[in-house]
């Protein structure tokens, strides 16, 4: 944490325009978190990994649609994993830094949100360059745009889930374990459970139930948004058209986006609440 002592915070806290100052403080903390993370080689490695993977997918496949399909798997599996694990570890590692900040006249929520903002920004930058640039270069269409937006939203949602996991337990191992469990649940377990229950209740009309269940998992939301772009033809078949009509409509898109925002803001809000009252 070299150079951290050099941070200078304004001493007066109760002057008019405090909100603006608080906002500035949060941004300042976020800035230092970003610097700190960028000095850590991990995010750089993540960026290079994404860049290499997406470039090779697009170069290997003659059809950009095929490259997008392969890239989608990375975004649905690797991105949440990296986001959760890295964010949890980083938060645990910066406890000392946060303790230092807490000794200053700063609001706890500002410190925490500053940490979140810094973390989310650096991972989004890595994703934006690693995936966003190749996608826009090789496939600058609507589906490419959707893929990038989905990836960014998923990053935000999983960093927020990771922060929640990290504040729930003081023990690092347990916190990381919980974060991994969340990742495993969202990417694999949830779909498995829904599929199983779908088989079990296949005699009933389940279309609407299944559409509702999709909102309970951020990975599913991102996946369905991409499905509409990549498999539009197949979705038009049979009752699939129902999904196409709902998720493809303005209402459906708006609702999906809103649900995604809830997935970002919800866990973060909960984490901030816990962090405020936490005995550090």
């Amino acid at each position, binding site marked *: 944490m070299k150079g951290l002592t050099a941070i200078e915070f304004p001493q007066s806290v109760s002057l008019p325009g405090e909100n603006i100052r608080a906002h500035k403080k949060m941004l300042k903390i976020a800035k230092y978190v970003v610097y700190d993370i960028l000095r850590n080689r991990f995010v750089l490695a993540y960026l290079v990994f994404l860049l290499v993977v997406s470039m090779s997918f697009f170069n290997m496949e003659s059809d950009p649609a095929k490259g997008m399909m392969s890239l989608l798997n990375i975004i649905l599996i690797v991105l949440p994993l990296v986001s959760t694990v890295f964010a949890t570890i980083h938060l645990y590692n910066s406890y000392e830094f946060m303790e230092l900040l807490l000794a200053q006249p700063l609001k706890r929520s500002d410190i925490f949100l500053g940490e979140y903002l810094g973390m989310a920004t650096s991972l989004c930058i890595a994703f934006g360059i690693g995936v966003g640039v190749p996608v826009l270069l090789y496939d600058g269409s609507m589906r490419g745009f959707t893929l990038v937006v989905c990836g960014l939203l998923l990053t935000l949602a999983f960093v927020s889930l990771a922060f929640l996991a990290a504040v729930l337990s003081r023990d690092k191992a347990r916190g990381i374990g919980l974060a991994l469990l969340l990742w495993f649940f969202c990417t694999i377990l949830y779909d498995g459970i829904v599929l199983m229950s779908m088989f079990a209740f296949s005699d009933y009309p389940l279309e609407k139930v299944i559409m509702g269940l999709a909102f309970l998992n951020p990975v599913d939301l991102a*996946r369905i948004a991409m499905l509409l772009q990549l*498999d539009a033809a197949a979705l038009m078949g049979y*009752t699939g058209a129902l999904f196409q009509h709902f998720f493809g409509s303005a209402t459906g898109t708006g609702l999906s986006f809103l649900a995604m925002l809830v997935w970002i803001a919800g866990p973060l809000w909960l984490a901030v609440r816990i962090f405020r009252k936490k005995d550090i």
Partner: protein
Amino acid sequence: MTLNVKLMKNLTVLICFILCAWAATARTWVVAPGTALSSIKAAISQARPFDTVLVRAGEYREGSLTVDKPLTLRGAGWPVLDGENKYQPLGIRSNYVSVSGFRVIRCGAQSMEDMAGIKVYNARNVYIFNNDLENNYFGIYLSASKHCWVSGNRLKSIGTVEQTAGNGIHAWKCDSVSITDNQIRGHRDGIYFEFVTNSFIARNYSEANIRYGLHFMFSHSDTYEHNTFIRNGSGVAVMYSRHVTMRHNTFAANLGGAAYGILLKDIQSSYMSDNEFIENTVAVFMEGCTRSLLERNVFRQNGWALKVQASCDNNTFRNNNFFANTFDVATNNQLVLNTFDKNYWDKYEGYDINRDQIGDVPYHPVSLFAMVSDQMPYAMLFWRSFTVFLLDRAEKVIPSLSPDQLRDNTPLMKPYIALLQ
């Protein structure tokens, strides 16, 4: 020998001379509004067989016109034949009639008789070319005719439901007709064939029709090639026919629960090659088809490239190319009586050690999820989920639900088109 050649030459000259002399007796009747001859009906009744009726620009509301003798009807400056939503603008009841350069509009609709913009009854050698047909019930209707030629016409209609719209080009009980270079949109079926044999359909563009772009029933030994069928309600249907040849056609964007790039039902001994299928819900749906060969077709970004029902047998799929389809092949049973040979599948993950461009491991094109979504369509919402991917993988290793016999033993490592180039 030389004498014979000389005789032939003289004979040819003589025949030409006779033909010219005879042609010189044919008259041209010029119909124009505001002149002595302002009615097409009058011109037709005055004309002698093989005369020409030249119709100048103007609007002609003459009820139902009938051509009952061999005539050449030519429009200059797009004269309009208006059916006023009551009449059939032009009926042809004679051999050797040609119609060109007219704008035929607003043919009446009736449930007792199928009225059409231009209808041909029981005739031979009728040529209908280069006409504009707009908002007609049926567009061009060939009934029990032979050796007719329909070419370069543009047909447009604004039908909304199947019941109130007629077909664009409709042929019933015909033989040796040729339908080429027409553009058809907004009719019930773009082109409709029933009991039509030995016919040729080429270079037509059939778009946004309510039901099918092309509808084929009980029509044997026909060929259609270089046509485009795009955004039609249900794509193209070819049913109950034998010896049909389909080449170099494009089937695109036929989307919907019952939409097929092409629906093949009870087709025998037919041949389909070099067609392109792009973004259809189901590119090719086959039911009860036998002894047909599908080769060198290209399937791109379709929901299902092939749906081959278990009622099909002895069909061969060879050198086809599959790119970025959601599902390559689906079927409804374990029974497989068809052959898949040397196709290119972009999802193939095998290897080629001896470098003969043929994969050393067979490819199973039916995925588990294709079978599942056939039973439970709403399971489609879980496609591309990692869980489904894992299930599919497990199924690939130990096939239990998908038919093990449906496989390509010699999958190509590179697309067939690439091998040609």
